């Protein structure tokens, strides 16, 4: 345990010196503040509380940003050490590869957690200052926080997997961006295409809801936009959520980090320094 924490400590130190921490926090804070302020402008009969509006926007944003930050934090984790030559020694130490991964994972989760927390904290502060403390809804807020962490964890795991498989930083960064594109953009696009082609056939009813929830980014989105009225305004794929339901989404989102880290471990086990 001390070993894992020591690794985490060291990685945090490095992340701080490499300005990763600052970058991640800045990115999240910036976008969250912009969305919160912008989201508080419109008038009319949207019928949702300012908190829910902000959370809905931030959810959509997080679908893009959290995986990106996760991948940026992780793509270098193994490949970088392999290229720098520090991996050989590291692997001879009395820690299992799982422990090494876990150590890095903890450090990166701390960075991610801090960035998300600061972002959401700013959002909460803005809403509280505009609409009073009563307007804060802790339930959806903490749900968003923890699901963001789960989403981030998933992509950290996938990033380690890439880093282990590719073993060259340059190539790893490319693959990571590709994965991001696929998971965040192309996957949904593909589903949409299939829906159109299928035109209400069996795919739409049986496979599609599961395929949708199988993507952690979609599961995350569905989980955090439960409000039907807002959902109607936000996304065309909302209706599918009823099929797999809350537990399906939650299962996907909780299973993914585990699966991703397992992938990472398997890939990392194959790495010869």
């Amino acid at each position, binding site marked *: 345990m001390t070993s894992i924490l020591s690794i985490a400590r060291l990685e945090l130190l490095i992340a701080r010196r490499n300005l990763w921490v600052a970058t991640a926090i800045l990115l999240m804070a910036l976008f969250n503040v912009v969305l919160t302020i912008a989201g508080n402008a419109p008038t009319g009969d949207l019928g949702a509380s300012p908190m829910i509006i902000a959370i809905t926007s931030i959810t959509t944003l997080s679908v893009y940003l959290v995986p990106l930050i996760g991948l940026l934090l992780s793509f270098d984790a193994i490949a970088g050490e392999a290229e720098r030559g520090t991996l050989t020694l590291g692997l001879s130490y009395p820690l299992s590869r799982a422990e090494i991964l876990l150590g890095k994972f903890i450090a990166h989760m701390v960075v991610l957690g801090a960035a998300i927390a600061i972002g959401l904290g700013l959002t909460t502060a803005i809403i509280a200052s505009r609409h009073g403390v009563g307007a804060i809804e802790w339930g959806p807020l903490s749900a968003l926080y923890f699901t963001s962490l789960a989403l981030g964890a998933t992509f950290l795991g996938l990033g380690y997997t890439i880093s282990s498989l590719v073993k060259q930083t340059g190539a790893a960064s490319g693959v990571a961006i590709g994965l991001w594109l696929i998971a965040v953009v192309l996957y949904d696009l593909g589903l949409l295409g299939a829906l159109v082609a299928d035109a*209400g056939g069996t795919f739409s009813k049986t496979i599609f809801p599961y395929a949708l929830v199988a993507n952690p980014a979609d599961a995350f989105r569905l989980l955090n936009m439960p409000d039907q009225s807002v959902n109607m305004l936000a996304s065309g794929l909302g209706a599918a959520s009823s099929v797999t339901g809350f537990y399906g989404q939650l299962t996907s989102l909780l299973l993914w980090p585990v699966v991703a880290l397992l992938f990472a471990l398997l890939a990392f086990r194959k790495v010869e320094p």
Partner: protein
Amino acid sequence: REWQIAPEGEALAIALQNAEAGDIIRLAPGTYKGPIEIDKSIVLDGQSHAHVIGNEQGSVVTILAKDVTVRGLKITGSGSDGETKDAGITISKTADRALVEHNELIGNLVGIDIHGTKNALVQKNKIEGRLDHRMNARGNGVYVWNATGSKVIGNDIRYGRDGIFVNTSKKNVFEGNRMRDLRFAIHYMHANNSVVRGNTSLANHLGYAIMYSDNVVIENNLSRGDRDHGIMLNYTNKSTIIGNRVEEGGEKCVFIYNAHKNQFNQNLFAQCQIGIHFTAGSERNTFAQNSFISNRTQVKYVGSKWVDWSVEGKGNFWSDHSAFDLDGNGIADAAYRPNDIMDHVLWTQPAAKSLLGSPAVQLIRWSQSAFPALLPGGVVDKAPLMQPVLPNLKEWEER
């Protein structure tokens, strides 16, 4: 009594003078000198081959008596004074229940002037206005002024200024006319409680211009290729626009300026630059089951209020709405918002046009679909239809 008149000398004038109410005057083929005035309730029947030529002064045929029928004449040679509304046929104030049908009115300043008449019926005439003069100096095909209960049906109107210009009149019916190559096909000013039905407007500047009028029913009309707007509502309230078909228009299929409490149902608005342009003071209009197909901008509406364009769970069909209907109830699962924040920026900051297509604009466009919080007010269709409800129109039939 029936009069058979040949195109010789003053025969027509004499006949008109001597005829009594209820007589029928039939004209043999040939040309007759106008202008003529009909001050008895007779039938003047040109049998489609008689040509009355005016002297380029005033109207060619003026109906002064009640219950007159003018049929089957070719009428040319009216005067050109816009002030006095020189026309092919003038149906004057005293000529209630006039019937004007199957005439051919060519090159007159105004085709038929229904001037303060009650219950006139003008049908199946062919009216060709002038091509000389500037558009605004030309006359209208049918001019309806201060008339009540007129019916203008099945006329074929071409050239001139407006096809049918209705001014300060009420309870009229305009049905099944065809209007081409005009400024406005039908122009309504201060004309309440009328029906405009089944007309065809082709390649005019503007199809159906309804202004300063209430309770007009605009039904099953066609506007194809009208340059500026297909239908325009200007200070027009409480009207029903139903089952019309506006397509291949130029700028706007529909332009609404300061008009409210109107109902738009089951219309088709297709292939215009803007489907509906919605401007100042236009409130409480309802839109349901219309089809917006392939307009470059489906709706242009700048406002900070949310306006729902669905009525009792039925919205409109939008050709660019890529939504799904997973529960199969015919209503899309996602709301449709024709305009986004970017449209608003472009409409308020024209310089922003240079950023069209840039990732920033795409980001904003995408954000509006993704972040409800970023939406400005505007039109929302909460129950978009998956299938269009297309109006079924009779095409114009050539006589």
